[in-house]
């Protein structure tokens, strides 16, 4: 499977590139969650690709490239934000249009509500729940990416969950009343 491991410099980049390509969709989704706009998110992804490529020699093949790339992205994003004086970009309106073409299990309204709720979280809690709940990192990895203690990461995720539950008024079966369609869809998706 992994042909030509470290036989000199030209052989290094193909597997570096291949691994990067595999992570790219996940990285893009993280970029979007940070930037909230597809154009800005893709610009950020581009910066990260170039940066990572230039730091290629400092990366050890076989170690966690995903965490490495996410760390670079996070640093790039926050240093750009600091330079711009923390201006928060307006979320793009194309999200709804994009989503309606996705045959997902949730209605567009459900996910837009969720997105609005997510945007109300403090940055540290938001990125915590995304890294652990969506990007697929362990608490330890997420803590390393964000440069905090594991315990801090855990409590951020848990606070984020609690806050989202409050904001979305999801507190269990009893509250599903007005939202029966999405609940049914969920049940269907779970059984599948």
């Amino acid at each position, binding site marked *: 499977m992994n042909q030509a491991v470290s036989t*000199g*410099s*030209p052989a290094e*980049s*193909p597997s570096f*590139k291949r691994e*990067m*390509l595999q992570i*790219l*969709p*996940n990285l*893009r*989704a993280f970029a*979007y*969650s940070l930037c909230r706009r597809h154009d800005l*998110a*893709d610009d950020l*992804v*581009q910066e990260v*690709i*170039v940066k990572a*490529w230039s730091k*290629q*020699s400092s990366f050890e093949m076989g170690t966690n490239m995903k965490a490495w790339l996410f760390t670079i992205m996070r640093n790039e994003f926050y240093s750009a934000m600091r330079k711009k004086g923390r201006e928060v970009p307006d979320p793009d309106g194309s999200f709804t249009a*994009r*989503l309606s073409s*996705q045959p*997902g*299990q*949730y209605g567009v309204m*459900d*996910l837009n509500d*969720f*997105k609005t709720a*997510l945007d109300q979280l403090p940055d540290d809690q938001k990125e915590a*729940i*995304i890294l652990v*709940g*969506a*990007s697929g990192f362990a608490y330890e990895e997420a803590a390393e990416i964000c440069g905090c203690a594991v315990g801090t990461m855990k409590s951020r995720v848990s606070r984020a*969950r609690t806050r*989202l*539950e409050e904001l*979305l008024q*999801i*507190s*269990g*079966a*009893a509250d599903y009343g007005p939202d029966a369609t999405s609940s049914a869809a*969920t*049940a269907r*998706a779970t*059984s599948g």
Partner: protein
Amino acid sequence: MNDHHNKPGGSAGRNPYDKTEDATSEISKRLRALYDSVQTEPIPDRFLDLLEKLDEVDAPPNAGSQRK
């Protein structure tokens, strides 16, 4: 420690102890659905082109003797 859900019926058997778990998994599912809406998009050409270019710059075809 929280292995308290015996769901015999499967579908509608929600008991009050599941409340928190339900809410947590509902949050997780929506979060993932939102994230996946971007993650499942095909990789835009601009990134494929960029990687192609970087690769060419990095390893020109006649660079056999050039080592780091």
